[in-house]
């Protein structure tokens, strides 16, 4: 994918902050996420807890917007840790950083770190994403 506003990964060095943005989850956001994933469980929604994967998904969208990946880029692996609940109406700050850039055979591999903090600066989500680039 190419986006004229996105940075090319070749110009990034480890430590580069790819995106940092604040989000607040509304009841509609949670409803939309549950509809998209056809999650009919009774844990989310009425009790005000945001599904953890809805939290984890947001930085991925920001990464997709912020880096110009070539066609054929593949999301190969994902580590994630849900450290605490996020409640509807709570603001979180999602920050993604380039951790590592290396070669794997003829391909380039990027490892990205993702951290989501709540209003008290507590980490509520941590993730590590690896993307293989042709």
């Amino acid at each position, binding site marked *: 994918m190419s986006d004229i506003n996105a940075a090319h990964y070749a110009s990034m060095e480890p430590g580069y902050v790819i995106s940092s943005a604040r989000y607040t989850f509304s009841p509609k956001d949670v409803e*939309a996420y549950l509809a998209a994933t056809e999650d009919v469980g009774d844990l989310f929604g009425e009790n005000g807890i945001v599904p*953890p994967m809805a939290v984890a998904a947001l930085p991925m969208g920001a990464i997709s917007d912020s880096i110009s990946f070539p066609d054929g880029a593949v999301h190969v692996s994902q580590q994630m840790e849900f450290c605490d609940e996020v409640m509807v109406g709570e603001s979180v700050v999602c920050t993604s950083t380039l951790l590592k850039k290396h070669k794997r055979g003829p391909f380039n591999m990027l490892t990205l770190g993702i951290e989501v903090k709540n209003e008290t600066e507590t980490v509520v989500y941590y993730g590590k994403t690896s993307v293989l680039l042709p």
Partner: protein
Amino acid sequence: MDKSGRKITDLREGVELPPLVKSVVQENINRYAEAARDFNPIHIDEEFAKKTPAGGTIAHGMLALAYVSQMMTDAFGLDWVAGGKLDIRFKAPARPGDTLTVSGQIVRIDSNDDRKTVCCDVTCVNQKDEVVVLGKAEVGLIGD
């Protein structure tokens, strides 16, 4: 189900988690793109996706992981939501028309003081039995 939302009661090695079956449809991929604000055209633009190595639209990898997380939430409730860990590899893309089956099995239970950590193997396969997602999940159980 207890107050934590945990439905699984038989906690021992070898126990299989209740599986989850999901149909992948383009409409849900589009909805997920909206919900996750991830509009990469490989997921939502058929004409664009046809010209890429994928040969057509594919679901967001995170959508497949959402199904894995849903299975873990169904089994472990709030313990998963505020204490779950996932370490997976994407082995194949999920495409519109696929039926995904997510399954998991308890492979180890570590006990440390008053806390148990349940370790599971998790997989997501399509209707052809091709592995889409493969990995491990861990969840700490509070008060067990």
